[in-house]
């Protein structure tokens, strides 16, 4: 029996004006694993990630063809409610983007707009997700302070807590450690590894070593084409495509 993953990309093409950024990408993202999308810069990694929660919608001149199925619903179907799609995914961006409000309100933002948490329990929920993101101990005495006062590493974990509080199934990371110092990066990586027990994690990175540290599954993009994908151990040990091999040896970067 075939197990349907809850995130599946089928024949995805993305155009920016006349430029074809993603070429016929098809991939089933394995559940409860960390899938890492690697590839040289400008190859469409971020575009692929953003196409998964329709963050390409507000951009100019973007055309998307193909299907992205989340729990067997095509998110590009006009009948699909975009906020419901996004609710299923938490996003970590390259630079953490805390919202212009307090630490507490940042985490409470999602539960408040979706109204899925009892008002009396909101405090507990905020604590729960701050703990999950490994930030609770550092901020528990200053929840009312502006989020912008946290260090960048703390902000990224706050963004993680904020994303988790919406109750997603999938966590998307767009080079989530690129703005962080080594220690904070390590911290975020550790969280992601912990979180794959409960969530499906997809991370874009241009750091090969990071991919090797955290990936269960690898997707290699080259010039908008999904060149190779498979379990990380296999791909790293036995790359089939010459371009993948060249990337691993550092000939293309």
């Amino acid at each position, binding site marked *: 029996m075939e197990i349907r993953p809850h995130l599946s990309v089928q024949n995805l093409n993305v155009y920016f004006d006349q430029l074809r950024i993603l070429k016929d990408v098809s991939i089933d993202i394995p559940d409860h694993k960390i899938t890492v999308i690697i590839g040289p810069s400008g190859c469409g990694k971020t575009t692929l990630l953003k196409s998964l*929660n329709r*963050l390409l919608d*507000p*951009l*100019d*001149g973007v055309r998307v063809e193909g299907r992205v199925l989340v729990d067997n619903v095509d998110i590009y179907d006009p009948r699909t409610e975009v*906020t*419901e799609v*996004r*609710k299923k*995914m*938490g*996003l970590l*961006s390259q*630079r953490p*983007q*805390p*919202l*212009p*409000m*307090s630490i507490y309100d940042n985490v409470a*933002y*999602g539960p408040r*707009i*979706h109204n899925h948490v009892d008002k009396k329990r909101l405090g507990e929920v905020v604590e729960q997700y701050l703990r999950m993101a490994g930030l609770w101990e550092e901020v528990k005495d200053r929840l009312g302070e*502006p*989020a*912008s006062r946290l260090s960048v590493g703390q902000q990224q974990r706050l*963004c993680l807590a*904020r*994303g988790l509080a*919406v109750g997603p199934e999938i966590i*998307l990371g767009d080079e989530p450690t690129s703005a962080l110092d080594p220690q904070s990066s390590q911290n975020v990586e550790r969280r992601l590894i912990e979180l794959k027990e409960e969530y499906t994690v997809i991370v874009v990175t241009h750091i090969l070593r990071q991919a090797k540290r955290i990936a269960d599954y690898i997707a290699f993009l080259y010039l908008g084409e999904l060149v190779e994908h498979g379990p990380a151990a296999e791909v790293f040990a036995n790359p089939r495509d010459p371009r993948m091999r060249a990337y691993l040896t550092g000939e293309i970067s």
Partner: protein
Amino acid sequence: MILSRESRRLRRRKMEERIFRALMAVSILIVIGCLVLIVGTIIWKGLPAMSLSMITQIPKGGYYLGKEGGILNAIIGSLYLASGATVLAILFSLPVVLYINVYTKKRSRLASLTRFSFDVLWGIPSIVYGAFGFIIMVFFGLRASLLAGILAVALLEFPIMSRAADEVIRMVPRELLEASYSLGATRLETALKVVVRQCLPGLLTAVLIAFGRGIGDAASVLFTAGFTDRIPTSLLEPAATLPLAIFFQLGTPFPEVQQRAYASAAILTVLILIISLVARGLGKRYTRHIIK
């Protein structure tokens, strides 16, 4: 040889630096000088006529041009008028500006057309808004009144406020909007909870600039608000305004009344100053959450 060429170059560059710095200093001096001269003149000429009764009483002894009493009618009238107009302008300005920044794409034709309209409206002289307000007033069968004045001044304030607000909201990084969208927020929630919060000080400035222009404008209220010595008690009564009070008082042949014009101008200036300071003080409380 090479050394001397280089040292000559360096000398020239230092010279350039000095000249431009001097030019900038002169410009700043002119700006500050103008401010000091204007405020100084107003106070100097108005001081002899300044008294507590100026701001606590309505005019006495002669319609419009009384030599006694005060200009409380115009102070209250101006405050009513500019506040009403500013509230009205916010009600139209904020949705438009949020729409073109949050709802449309960067290359949207509608957005650039709207911005172009702001620029055109911005450049229209206030007397034209006054005339236009007059036409609207007649169309609805209104007489010169507080309401008609509010409409005309709101029209004047709208492009000023919108343009300033647009400049601020355009600066919001796209990633911040994406962060909100990715949490499943709608565009409206993003606009009101994130964009407005992030831009609050800038929006406040936009409102203040518009308010300042509105309260200080004479031409737009000339045909629309009328003038009266009484303090208006309803929207349909005519209302006096400080700029018109100054205009009428200056136009008289009596030096005592002219002096009162300068005192009125000083009051208007101080009024704007107080409102700016209070608004900024209130705004400060909300700046702490802004993401830089």
